[in-house]
């Protein structure tokens, strides 16, 4: 039992690094810290969602010590369907798994996420709730972000825009095209005192969308 656990951990470590290496090879991903500094604070990174690789890119640009304390929130009804997915979701990504199907739930998703936050992990969430495959830059946010922000007002809610990954791997394609990607971290927001759910979600959505225009192409690099 002990030996099997050790082998599983080693395999997860190797698989995690292989995934990161592959992601960097394909996307040369680069962080743009445009409002939040790379500091190990308790945070919820909320990002646009266009591809299964979204979370990997955020992970890849976080400094290692922050990456180890940052967990993606992912759909249990997707990640526990096959043993391989379960291994990647649980062991490699250390995901906080929540069930999107209310009728099957045994735990409240917000409570599960708060538990992970209280244990000291920052979270990565995709408030659109599913992959955006249409022409709109962003879908309406679900309410989870508001409930988390209201329950833990000290946690920084960091808008995080992933640029270009939808072109690397459009929906339905199998082979990724190497293109440069960036991950832009904006100024953290908080749920204001007395702010309504709708007002906050509109503000959060606007904060995320504002980052989309700021970063065109791969530019804005080091001074030349």
């Amino acid at each position, binding site marked *: 039992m002990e030996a099997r656990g050790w082998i599983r951990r080693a395999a997860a470590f190797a698989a995690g690094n292989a995934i990161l290496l592959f992601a960097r090879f394909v996307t040369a991903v680069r962080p743009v810290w445009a409002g939040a500094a790379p500091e190990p604070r308790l945070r919820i990174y909320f990002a646009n969602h266009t591809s299964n690789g979204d979370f990997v890119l955020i992970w890849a640009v976080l400094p290692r010590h922050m990456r180890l304390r940052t967990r993606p929130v992912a759909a249990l009804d997707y990640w526990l369907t096959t043993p391989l997915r379960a291994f990647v979701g649980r062991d490699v990504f250390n995901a906080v798994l929540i069930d999107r199907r209310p009728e099957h739930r045994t735990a409240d998703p917000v409570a599960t996420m708060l538990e992970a936050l209280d244990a000291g992990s920052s979270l990565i969430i995709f408030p659109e709730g599913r992959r955006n495959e249409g022409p709109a830059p962003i879908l309406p946010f679900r309410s989870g972000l508001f409930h988390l922000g209201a329950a833990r007002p000290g946690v920084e809610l960091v808008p995080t825009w992933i640029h270009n990954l939808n072109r690397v791997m*459009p929906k339905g394609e199998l082979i990724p095209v*190497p293109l440069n990607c960036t991950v832009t971290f904006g100024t953290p927001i908080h749920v204001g005192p007395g702010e309504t759910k709708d007002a906050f979600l509109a503000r959060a959505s606007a904060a995320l969308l504002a980052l989309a225009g700021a970063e*065109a*192409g791969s*530019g804005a*690099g*080091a001074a*030349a």
Partner: protein
Amino acid sequence: MNGNPGQDLFVLLSGVAILLVVATVAGQILRERFSPDGTNAVIENLNARILSWWGMVTLLALAFLAGRTGVVLLFAFCSFAALRESLTLTAKDRADHWSLVACFYLILPFQYWLVWTDWYGLYSVFIPVYAFLFLPILAALRGTPQGFLTRVSETQWALMISVFCISHVPALLSLRIAGFEGKNVLLIAWLVFTVQFSDVMQYVWGKLLGRRRIAPSLSPSKTWEGFVGGTLTASAAGALLWWITPFPPAEAFALALVVTLLGFGGGLVLSAVKRDRGVKDWGSLIAGHGGFIDRLDSVIFAAPVFFHLVRYFWSST
């Protein structure tokens, strides 16, 4: 006489190492003087550039040591990174996915395989003819007419710049020049040194004396003083290095002038593309310099012409 490039290469690399040591010391003195707290952007960038030069020269030296395969692999990787940068900025649609996949996974490796096997007759026409015709067919099969001509043109342009032109650097290994057998790697060393030295000297002359801008709307840092000073200094350096080439000194000077002028043109053209697309750098992988295309822009324009001039006037193949 059949030569071994080792000794000449060693002398050239030692000279470059001395230049870099001088640059490193000068950079540190400037930092002490003017930017002790690391706030002077120009000096910080200068030092980042010098540090990156150490890395690039080391990689190139290792590739030379590894021989033909090492050189081909190094420039294939440069092409990969350059293609990734250029296709990031070009117009594209979902319908282009298979064309883009073909660029990276078929055309690029095949072009470098042709260079590696010395198949001049095919690598010199493969991208301008076969890829030029094949990629639009692939895009048309997916059937989205919106922006079609723009999309296929920009994809082809990215391939020409990033793969076709860069592949002419390792292609220099396949030229057969009487009395220069086995030493072709020195052609690459001479070309890369002369063109890059011109870039560096344009930067230095421009910073020291630069006043009149050549194309302010394209590149604020390119000045007439930098251009004249840089190309002439580098051409003189290229002529002084005639002994590592198959060319007599006067011809080495003429060739150096041609490649530095083309290099300057390449910098200008690729700046224009960046301005058009609203980015400052092609990428960010080479600290202080930007992306691979930012560093290779002059080599991209110089390599094919240098290759054909040497092939026509000196080579027996």
